[in-house]
């Protein structure tokens, strides 16, 4: 089945294109880009006039909770949420049950994804066996089985020597290492950002230094070993500064931030809103500004959601007992588009952050619509206005701090390997 996307504004930083272009797709592959392309017989045509066409968006940091925690999310619902949010690919973190630390679990996910997921699912294996932080997982086998990175996300690798060896070993294997950077002794039993709001609410704070100290360790380990490291979900001005300085002297460090860190401050927790509780915590206005500056100047390489579904019962409790994390797949695109509206970024930079760069960091043959490339395409309606409601979310869980928000911008079509997997009503 062929597909022709007609008359859209194609933004593809991998080819330096920002022009009206038709895209002809055949057998799941981009066949031709051009103007006034004719549709061969049997071709489905999408009128993309007034819409933006980009290489399929990639969320390099999601929790799909499958296997083991399917009451929160599974590959089917999580991938539908991704498609609805305009993502054609997601990379899922290994803190499942069991942990993705061997070929069997990796294969389980890939097999199940083939039959149930509507988008590409790329598993991330754990850095350490069982995610326990004690010994290295079999990264070679994980890579062969289909893992695109390793991470102990959810917690840091506290042992500095082990992290050093992980970076060295992973470099040999040729697999990306994603660090959840957090100095646990400074986090203690903190439940939110340490600052005035925590003082007001009487909640135990987590200082920004808990993140910065850990990011600094990873940067120096990367510098020392010469191995690349990717820092997950940075949230502080200090992290951005450390990474900016490291990049300037040639350290192979990349990083991501999440839409909530450039959109919300810790004031979202007033009223003890457990849907604004996550780790790292929402920070101060100066950190939000630093995230925007970091996105604008290229310090931050990727926007990733850290999509973390939790059951309502796990959030409908006293604040300290509520689990960390929020769903993000379906609100990421409009929140990120707002950066463009607000003049922080241009669309080309946004597509790099949400597609090209994540593909590069994970080594995926994605993030481009060059002829011959896999036809993963996102067609964006930047004008579409809609309200976030629990009913509208495809995710099995509804733990979003953006419920009730008015959004502008949505995926009109999400196309995976030439197949339309999501079409806005």
């Amino acid at each position, binding site marked *: 089945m062929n597909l022709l996307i007609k008359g859209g504004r194609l933004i593809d930083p991998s080819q330096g294109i920002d022009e009206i272009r038709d895209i002809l797709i055949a057998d799941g592959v981009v066949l031709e880009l051009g103007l006034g392309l004719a549709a061969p017989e049997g071709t489905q045509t999408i009128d993309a006039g007034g819409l933006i066409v980009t290489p399929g968006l990639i969320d390099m940091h999601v929790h799909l909770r499958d296997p083991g925690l399917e009451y929160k999310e599974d590959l089917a619902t999580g991938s539908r949420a991704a498609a609805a949010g305009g993502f054609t690919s997601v990379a899922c973190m290994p803190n499942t049950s069991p942990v993705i630390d061997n070929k069997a679990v990796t294969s389980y996910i890939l097999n199940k994804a083939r039959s149930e997921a509507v988008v590409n699912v790329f598993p991330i294996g754990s850095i350490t066996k069982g995610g326990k932080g004690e010994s290295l997982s079999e990264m070679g086998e994980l890579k062969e089985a289909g893992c695109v990175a390793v991470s102990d996300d959810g917690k840091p690798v506290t042992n500095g020597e082990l992290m050093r060896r992980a970076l060295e070993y992973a470099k040999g294997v040729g697999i990306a290492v994603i660090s959840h950077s957090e100095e646990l002794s400074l986090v203690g039993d903190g439940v939110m950002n340490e*600052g005035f709001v925590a*003082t007001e*609410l*009487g*909640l135990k704070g987590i200082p920004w230094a808990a993140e910065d100290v850990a990011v600094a360790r990873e940067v120096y380990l990367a510098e020392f070993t010469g191995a690349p490291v990717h820092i997950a979900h940075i949230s502080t001005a200090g992290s951005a500064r450390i990474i900016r300085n490291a990049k300037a002297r040639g350290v192979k460090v990349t990083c991501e931030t999440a839409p909530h860190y450039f959109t919300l401050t810790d004031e979202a927790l007033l009223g*003890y809103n457990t849907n604004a509780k996550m780790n790292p915590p929402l920070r101060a206005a100066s950190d939000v500004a630093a995230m925007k500056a970091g996105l604008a100047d290229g310090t931050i390489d990727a926007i990733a959601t850290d999509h973390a579904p939790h059951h309502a*019962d796990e959030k409908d*409790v*006293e604040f300290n*007992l509520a689990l960390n994390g929020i769903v993000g797949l379906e609100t990421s695109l409009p929140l990120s588009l707002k950066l463009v509206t607000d003049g922080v970024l241009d669309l080309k930079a946004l597509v790099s952050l949400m597609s090209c760069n994540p593909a590069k960091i994970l080594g995926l043959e994605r993030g481009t619509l060059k002829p011959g490339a896999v036809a993963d395409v996102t067609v964006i309606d930047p004008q579409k206005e809609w309200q976030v409601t629990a009913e509208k979310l495809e995710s099995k869980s509804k733990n979003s701090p953006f419920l009730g928000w008015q959004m502008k911008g949505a995926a009109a079509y999400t196309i995976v390997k030439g197949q339309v997997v999501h079409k806005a009503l």
Partner: protein
Amino acid sequence: MGFRHKDIIALKDLSKEDIELLLNTADSLDEINRRDIKKVPTLRGKTVVNLFYEASTRTRTSFEIAAKRLSADTINITASTSSVTKGETLLDTAQNVLAMKPDIIVMRHAVSGAHEYLSTRVSCSVINAGDGAHEHPSQGLLDMLTMRQKFGTLSGLKVAIVGDITHSRVARSNIYGLTTMGSQVFLAGPPTMMPIGVERLGNVTVCKDMREAVHQADVVMMLRIQLERQGKTLLPSMREYSRYFGLNPEVLSLAKKDAMVMHPGPINRGVELSSAVADGSQSFILKQVENGVAIRMAMLYHVCGGEPVEG
């Protein structure tokens, strides 16, 4: 003007008129506590559930006596905080209690914000008997009642609060209440126990040491220091704490001549308070406990819709 709140969760939420009404009512109801027969029928037929997730002697007893003196029926439920994580959730417990149609739940809970959470999910009144490090409104009110009885007004009073401000719900309630009533609050404590931005909570000055806070104060309020709760990283020792943040007659002499010494109890003799001060003529610690009954009677009375009473 009557009291319009269904719940009393935080002094931050109460206006000057609200606080004055509660203090006035407490002054009026206090007369009952001096009678031979200490009981009036005001809340007859009302049911008050004391739901305590944290140990408490003073506050729970005080609420229970207050309810009984107003002829309400009271029951006490003591739940251990540890069961919260594995056993029945707070919401389920509250809904079960609610099914038995209480009028007021008086709750103490270790988690800040637990009352705000609960109050949006139950139809009866919720009174906060202390939540985490957030607020302890009945303590703040009884402290203000005690100060007002002595000085006639709260306006312009200089109140020093000394100790672990970070973990103190008593400090927060006093800061909010006293600021609303026109007092000035001066804080002193180890830097490890002084939370970020505390000066923005109200009319608050953070002092560099205890002497500066106590200087010319009308009220010196000492907070209980709990090494076991606050962990080993915040202080070198009780001994050193006492040396710099303990109230003894010499430090107290820096305050105004008729300054009041207050403490929410239980006191650590020889740590934050020397016995000479705790038992001295300027100590109002037992008066605070006495006033606790009257203020809690006023709180129960007004959340039940009681009209202002004539003094």
